[in-house]
């Protein structure tokens, strides 16, 4: 079975996920005058001092490093908002709160490069860590329900990094369950000599969980 003996089932490394996250848009306030920048991914600017504009995160970080702008933290990255999210995450055992798909990576990049632009940076940082821990614990509880009848798992609002962490494990576990539930080994129905109809029967017996 493909992937069963391969320990490197993970498709993306954390750095690659971070790279993808750098395409998310953030708001910056430039302190220089500059013409519009024309890139393959779109045109950004023109930039005027003190006039906020939307740019991709990688451009914002590049400008920030040169001291040419301040980054406005995203709407969700405030102490009040994150406290609410954390409360809600703790309250419900199953549902995940809606956060940006790349919230782990965006917050890491902003903490690294623009900590002076985030109010209450220590508080925000520890809140995000807490949210991530609570959510990951919930992912694990969700995975406990995995069994031979599941051949897919749907968890709403899971973020890119969280998916990336559990991907190798879940992929393997589902494969193993599928293998052990094969109709050759589990004689649950009338055995017929031809294998193909049996496989079809088995597939209809499965259903998506949640």
């Amino acid at each position, binding site marked *: 079975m493909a992937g069963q003996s391969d*320990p490197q089932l993970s498709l993306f*490394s954390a750095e690659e996920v971070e790279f993808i996250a750098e395409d998310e848009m953030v708001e910056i306030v430039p302190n220089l005058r500059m013409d519009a920048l024309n890139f393959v991914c779109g045109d950004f600017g023109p930039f005027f001092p003190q006039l906020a504009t939307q740019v991709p995160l990688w451009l914002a970080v590049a400008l920030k490093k040169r001291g040419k702008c301040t980054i406005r933290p995203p709407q969700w990255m405030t102490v009040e908002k994150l406290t609410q999210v954390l409360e809600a995450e703790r309250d419900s055992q199953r549902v995940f709160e809606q956060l940006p798909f790349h919230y782990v990576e965006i917050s890491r990049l902003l903490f690294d490069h623009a900590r002076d632009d985030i109010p209450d940076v220590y508080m925000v940082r520890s809140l995000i860590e807490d949210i991530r821990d609570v959510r990951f614990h919930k992912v694990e509880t969700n995975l406990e329900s995995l069994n031979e009848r599941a051949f897919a798992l749907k968890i709403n609002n899971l973020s890119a990094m969280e998916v990336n962490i*559990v991907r*190798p494990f879940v*992929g393997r576990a589902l494969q193993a369950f599928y293998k052990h539930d094969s109709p050759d080994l589990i004689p649950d129905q009338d055995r017929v000599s031809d294998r193909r109809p049996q496989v079809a029967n088995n597939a209809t017996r499965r259903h998506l969980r949640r």
Partner: protein
Amino acid sequence: MAKYYDIDDIITDEEIVAVIFQKSASGVGIDPSSETDCVEVGSKVELPFWLAHELQQRQAVSLNIPTSFNQNTRLEIQADSACVDLRSRCPFFYEFGCKIAPLVGARNIGPLLLSAFKSRYKEVLTKAHTAAFTAASKNLTILTKEETNLYEAAQSSMAAFKKWRMGGPRFQKASILGRKRKSTE
């Protein structure tokens, strides 16, 4: 043929099974305890699985259920599957079970594998992402190869994430840079 180069699959084929010869065979040194180079009908010999499988296809032998799947193991797995040391019984418990089940005609092996994996999976899941490596290495010794793979997949992805979160050098310099001109000067 898909598994032809799979080393785990090859090792699985080396597992020993007890067989009973249905035909006498002469000129073979299979049975080390016999005095002659001849195997009588009805003699019980332990053979590696790949050989037993071939002989069984020619109706030369009949396979016994291996000890890893006998009643004792079954009871132990039913009692507390998470603590059973499956690795010492058979490192490729699940793979071997899948191979042997259709040959010995034991219908209960399949459900046994499934129920064992299902309950042991939970144990692996709870430890894999959280436990520190040193604390978990004790549990690692009772896991079969397939479970170890699962465990290590989770461990390595979690370790990679932690490494990324802790930071370190943001950019790695390609080794070719930096010594660009030194060789010519």
